[in-house]
Every structure is written in C-alpha cells, then in structure tokens.
C-alpha cells in the first residue's frame, strides 16, 4: 500500500517534470525547423540541453516564488508558464506577444507567473533579483527568488557584488549557475583564473550545491533542498549546475565544425540527454508508452497551434512604438 503510494507520487512528479522538459524541447525544435524561414527575426539562444535545470527548478519552486533569468531564457519561460501563445507571438514580433513583439527572444517575462524578467547583458538581472529578494524579506511574504545565470556571469563584477549583498543581508534567494562551460565560444580554461568556483563561494555566508546530473528529478530534489534551506535559514543558496549546450551560442545549428569544442563532448552528454533520460525513467516507472505518446502529442499540438497562430497574427500597430516607456 505504502510502496504503491510512493510509486504513484514518483510517477506524478516525473510526469510533471517530463511535461515541462518535453515542452521546452518541442518548442525549441519547432523554432529550429522554421528559423530559416526568416519570420522569427529575433536572436535566439536555444535552451536545448538544459531542460533538466529549467524543468527541475521550476517544478520545485512554489507558485508565489519569483524568477529572473538570461537571454537563454526560453527554458525557464516555458517550464514556468507552460504557455506558448504569447511566447511564439513574441518571437514573431507580433501583437499580443509578451511585449507586443517589442522585446523578442532575449527579454521574456511573465510577471503574472512570477517570471520577473530576463536580460541580454550578462549578469544584469543578478542585482535586480537581490533587490527583489530584499523587498520580499521586508514584506515577509515568504517568496523565494531564483536567479538563473551562466558561467560567464561569474566573471562580471556585478556577480560578486550581488552575491555579497545577498549574503550580507541574508536574503531568501537561490543563485542558479547554469554552467555550460562556454561564454559564447570561449571555454572556462581561457577565462577563469581560479580552481574551484564552489570553494570560493563557500567562503560566503550561504549554502553551496554542485551537480552535473541531467536528470530532472535530481535537479528537482536539489531545488527542493535549496528552497527548504533558504526558507528555514533565510540564507541564500548557491547551486552550481553543469549542462551541455547542444547548438551554437545564438542560432539553431550545430557548430562542431568550427573546432572550438569537440563533438565527442556532445556525444558524451547526449548519452544522458535529459528528455530521453526522463522518458526512459517514466517507462521504468511503469508508465505506459501510450500514455507518454498521448502527452507528447498534446504538447506537440499546443506548440503547433501557437506557432501557426503567431504566423497568422498581425504586427503591432504604429502607436505601440510609444507605449510602455513611462508609467
């Protein structure tokens, strides 16, 4: 009886994680297939490869929690909101998009869902997230802020400024470093003059977690642990999560032919592909193939419909040019 309940709960959780991971993969693959049609005129930084982080952390967060991210933000947007209408309208630059097409792929937000903003200048959302966490602490509303950033942000001064303030003021915030080892095309070995990021961060007044698993469930558990820690101690948690970026920095193609990273590396990570791994796990957890196929079909349909809706929709009218500059 008890083991049955445990299995059921695990199935539920993993289905939930798969739904989010699969949505990201499906939406991104849709973009890949159509990008060359030149209708989505927006610099696109695909989240393929990092689905475990987006799905795992977003599933761990509570509905009232808040998120900030980067220009590689499709993953957290989709995992958090699970909506694709506004998403594709925005990529197409159409009216009804997140900002009526005025911000494009790199600045997604969903204020009503707590995704407070993403930004295309590395590190810029870090201090904003810290200020948001300060306000939450002052208002004692129990909200936790999750700030996502890449390994490149570590080299920005503002990262250390922000971490310092968050630890000094003991704010309820999760720092989530999505480490793909590359800043555009430059590996960490050519950028970082220190041995261990986590060892440095451990000198700050916060909890530090490192993980390189591509299993959404493991990331989810870490996210839960981080949330519990931060909520119970009112201390920041730093999660250093490694993943592999499958495609070029910006755009939709493989770029191994340029020899700045070996394809072998990709193949090693791809053997642990988060979406395939999660699918196999669900089968192992006795979820039926037919159930998975149905779930996938629904998501595929949702993405196709949103995509076609965006294709059909209108561009913003001229007066939108002057909208939303001042309150």
């Amino acid at each position, binding site marked *: 009886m008890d083991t049955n309940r445990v299995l059921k709960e695990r199935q539920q959780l993993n289905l939930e994680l798969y739904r989010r991971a699969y949505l990201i993969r499906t939406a991104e693959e849709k973009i890949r297939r159509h990008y060359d049609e030149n209708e989505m005129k927006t610099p696109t930084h695909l989240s393929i490869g990092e689905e475990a982080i987006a799905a795992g952390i977003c599933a761990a967060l509570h509905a009232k929690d808040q998120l900030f991210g980067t220009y590689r933000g499709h993953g957290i947007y989709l995992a958090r909101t699970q909506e694709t209408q506004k998403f594709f309208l925005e990529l197409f630059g159409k009216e009804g998009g997140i900002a009526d097409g*005025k911000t494009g792929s790199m600045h997604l937000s969903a204020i009503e869902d707590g995704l407070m*903003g993403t930004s295309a200048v590395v590190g810029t959302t870090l201090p904003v997230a810290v200020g948001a966490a300060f306000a939450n602490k002052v208002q004692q509303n129990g909200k936790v802020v999750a700030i996502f950033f890449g390994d490149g942000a570590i080299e920005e001064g*503002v990262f250390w400024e922000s971490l310092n303030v968050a630890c000094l003021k003991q704010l309820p915030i999760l720092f989530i470093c999505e480490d793909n080892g590359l800043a555009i095309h430059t590996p960490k070995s050519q950028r970082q003059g220190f041995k261990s990021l986590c060892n440095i961060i451990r000198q700050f007044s916060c909890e530090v977690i490192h993980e390189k698993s591509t299993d959404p469930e493991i990331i989810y558990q870490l996210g839960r642990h981080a949330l519990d820690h931060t909520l119970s101690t009112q201390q920041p948690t730093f999660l250093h999560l490694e993943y592999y970026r499958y495609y070029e920095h910006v755009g939709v193609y493989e770029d191994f032919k340029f020899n700045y990273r070996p394809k072998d590396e990709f193949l090693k990570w791809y053997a642990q592909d988060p979406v395939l791994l999660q699918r196999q796990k669900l089968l192992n957890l006795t979820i039926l193939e037919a159930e998975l196929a149905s779930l996938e079909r629904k998501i595929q349909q949702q993405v196709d419909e949103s995509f076609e809706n965006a294709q059909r929709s209108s561009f913003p009218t001229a007066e939108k040019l002057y909208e939303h500059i001042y309150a």
Partner: protein
Amino acid sequence: MRTLSYRQAINEAIQQEMERDPRVFIYGLDVPDHKRIFGSTVGLLEKFGSERCFGTPLSEDAMTGFGLGAALNGLRPIHVHIRVDFLLLALNQLFNMISCYRYMTGGKCAIPLVIRAVIGRGWGQSFQHSKSLQSIFAHIPGLKVIMPTSPQDAKGLMIAAIRDNNPVIVLEHRWLYDVEGDVEETPFETPIGTARILRTGKDLTVIATSWMNIEAQKAAQILEKHHVDLEIIDPRSISPLDMETLVTSVTKTGHCIIADYDWLNCGFSSEISARLMETCFHSLKSPVKRIGFAPTPCPGTRPLENLFYPNAITIIREVEKKLSLSKIDLSQETFYSYENKFKGPF
C-alpha cells in the same frame, strides 16, 4: 511658510514621504554615517530604523539593480550617491535595465525609483568629483531627470519624484545645500516637467540650470542697475522638458542665453538651442548663445577652476554683447565665493 535651507527642504521631503508611505526607504554609501550626505539625511536612521535607512557595500552597479528589484516588488527606493561621478559605475543598470524595464515587460511593471546624486564644484574637487551629466541621463528614454535650484522646488520636486512611478534622477548641486528660502510645511508636489520663471523681464531670456540660476540672478541684479531687464527661467526638469515656457519667453524677449551647468558639447544647452531654432526661429533677434564649462576635465587648482566654470560675470558679458551695451564696470560688485562656505576637505 518658513525659511529652510535646501538641505533641510530635501530632508523634510524625504521624512514626510517616509512617514506617509512605509514602502519608501533610503540607502546608499554614507547615507547613515555621521555626515549624512551634507546633512540631507539627518534623523532618518533614528526615525525609521536601519531597515529603511542603510549604508551599502561599495557596489554602485549592484546597488542600483537592487533598487530596480525592490521597486519591482512594490517598495519605493531612494538611492543616494554623494557624487554623480560614482553613478557612472551603474550606467549599465540605468541604461540597459531601469530605463527599459517597463517597456520590456509590456507595461506590466512600474519602477518607482529615485536616484539622488550630488553634483558641483568646490575646494579642489577636480575632475572625478564635480561632474553634472544631466544630458547623459536625459538622453535615455525611460528616465526622468530633475535639477531643483530653490529649497521650495527641492522639496516639491523630491516629493513628486518619490511619488512618481518612473525612475527619476535628482541632481543636487552641493553649493545649493546652504541656499535658504521659503518652503511650505505641508507636503506638496511640484510637477516634474514644468519650468519656473524665476524672474520676469523683457529684454533677454536666460535659461539656467541648477547653480547657474544663482549666478543668473546675481547678473540680473547688477544689470537692473544698468536698465537691462533679464527674464530667468529654470527648467527644473531636464527630462521631460517644459519647452512651452521657454518658447513663450524667448518669443517675448527675442534674445536667449542658455547657461547650463555642464559642458556644451552635445549637452542640454545644445538640445534647448536646437529646439528653439525649430520652434521660434523667426522670433529670435540674435543667435542663441550657450554658456557652460570649458571643454576640459575640471582642474583642481583654484585659478584654473575659476576659468573652467562660468559665473554671473560670464552672463553679464554675454548680455552686453547681445544687446550692444558698453562694458559695465564690475569692480565695485561682490560675487559669490565659496571660500566662506567650503573650507574642505570635503
């Protein structure tokens, strides 16, 4: 009405707003220290506690983004910089984030953020402690920029800035802190984007910013004795700009000198001049004249510093040229000297 100094007027505005609205807080380097930002933050720590009045790490960039984040989540921050030059460390947040955040979110966010920055000269400050930079900030859509001159305006505009749902940069000249004037006691707002006619006159319009209004008023007093009647207009708000008041005045007098407390090149003075050309070219009896800093870094040594900054005499000499007057003997006049106010080191 009572007489208050500019520093007292700012202090009173902030105190009253912090009392009225618990969401307002003030922070920045040295805000709660014993000097209290030229006395403008006196009493705030004692009255409102360290959660609403606190100093920060030396992290201008992060602490500016911090203000944006706090504003997004419903607080109303006032961030203070004891020199505008330090705010340059935060231009990334100001120009890439704060100014366009509302735009980015499709109008779903308001950013009620006030950034106070002290500008101006004194006691060998040289080139990293004396800039103004109003044109730099005003260049960016999404920001508001104000430069109050009188204590009354300092209070009214500060309250308006705190209540505004947009990011507002307040530039305060350090010499103005000692200026005294009548200030209403009850809280009031001076609308951002409205100019003030400081002196009504018929012969020539002087449009002056910040401290240059003090110099322009001195110039007007002297010129009055020589039967020249200056009209002085303080835009008070650099962005948005009340062009209507400026145009009305220049249309009336036909002559215009712009005395901006800044460099001329690509400056606020250039902007006003260009707009006057666009709107009332045919009313001008002479070309618009601009007065501002020498096109150099600000020197520390006094004799060169005196050459760097324009003053009342600069204005008088330009008025003489414009109105074809003979050179006025100024040997018996006394002009402002900061010797009596500022004896350093700060």
